[in-house]
């Protein structure tokens, strides 16, 4: 089962439709079972019984998750594959010691590979879709796989299968999510 984590600060069905439902659709299209929970209600049992975890994005300006670091401390312990999208990436980076900086990137943005990994091997990614107002530095325990002119946009933990994409692969480059789920 895939655990999909909704990262919004304020519960709203419209935000769920825009940022969570597209991820659920990809999982469903691959025949994967999933459980969707808000980050504040994720339990150790949820993590224990999940095969992989995807942390979703949020609307521009909703960065409440960045002040809930303690609720994501499980990221330090988990050894299962995790993919953080936008808000999810920012949270992963923050938990692993990165610092945040204001940086607004909106829409189709040029990007280039800076590292290698099975998740992106053979993919041709020249653009990514961005929707964020905060960027993160590269945490010490991570390597950078892809960047835009504003810094790291796809990162991976050096020893664990924990990935963070500051962009939205569900909009452009959906293969990243498909590969993550299929691997």
């Amino acid at each position, binding site marked *: 089962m895939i655990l999909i984590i909704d990262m919004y600060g304020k519960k709203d*069905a*419209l935000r769920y439709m825009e940022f969570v439902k597209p991820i659920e*659709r990809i999982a469903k299209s691959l025949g994967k079972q999933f459980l969707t929970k808000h980050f504040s209600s994720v339990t150790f049992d949820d993590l224990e019984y999940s095969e992989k975890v995807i942390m979703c994005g949020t609307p*521009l*300006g909703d960065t409440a998750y960045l002040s809930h670091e303690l609720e994501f401390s499980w990221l330090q312990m988990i050894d299962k594959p995790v993919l953080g999208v936008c808000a999810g990436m920012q949270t992963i980076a923050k938990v692993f010691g990165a610092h945040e900086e204001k940086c607004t990137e*909106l*829409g189709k943005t040029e990007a280039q590979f800076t590292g290698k990994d099975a998740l992106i091997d053979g993919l041709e990614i020249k653009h990514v879709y961005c929707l964020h107002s905060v960027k993160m530095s590269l945490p010490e325990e991570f390597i950078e796989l892809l960047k835009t002119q504003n810094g790291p946009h796809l990162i991976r933990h050096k020893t664990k299968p924990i990935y963070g994409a500051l962009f939205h692969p569900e*909009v452009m480059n959906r293969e990243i999510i498909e590969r993550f789920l299929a691997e």
Partner: protein
Amino acid sequence: MLAALFSGGKDSTYAVYIAIRAGHKIGCLVSVIPENKESYLFHTPNISLVGKLSEAMEIPLVKMSSYGERDKELNDLKNALKEAKAFGITGVLTGAISSVYQASRIQRVCFELGLECFNPLWLRNEQEHIEEIIRNDFHVIFTGVSAHPFDKSWLGRSLNALTARELGELSRSHGINAAGEGGEYETLVVDCPLYKKRLFIHSSERVFKEGAGVLEIKECELIPKSREEAK
């Protein structure tokens, strides 16, 4: 309280329907009326009917004219949203499904104005989307076509189980976006559960040339719904 970007087409109207069902209030509809029929951002055929449709929904309308030029359209939208702020809105609702061009530009305008942007139809499966619209009692007609193999006969047809199936077939055979997100076709909602009155078209004309066409609505009026329809 949200302002809904509104063209009278199926997607912007359905987004309003979803938002209201989700508990949001729509303070006003916002329509940018392009003078250029080839507008980059805004739906065009019969957009002059938005006033009637706003009356049918009993939701106020903020209307702004635009020359429909690539970047100036965004300024026109920005001015319309500034005006919409008088209705106490904190966010903007759109019917964008997959157009990165449209969605990112609207996101930017909202960001600059300190408004949240909501896209509840974002990345929907197009076929499932049109089928859901039909199931929810939306009466939608085709008012514009601009891609092969759509022809004059599509103008004025209703979106129903049959046309939805045909769109699905065209999607597979010709790569048409079943929801018309690539501008392959345009629609008008003549009735739906949001309307207190329905739009009755007295006369219209199909104008089709060089592979593209519009249904020009000449005369129409809002008429009361029967008790059954009003349910």
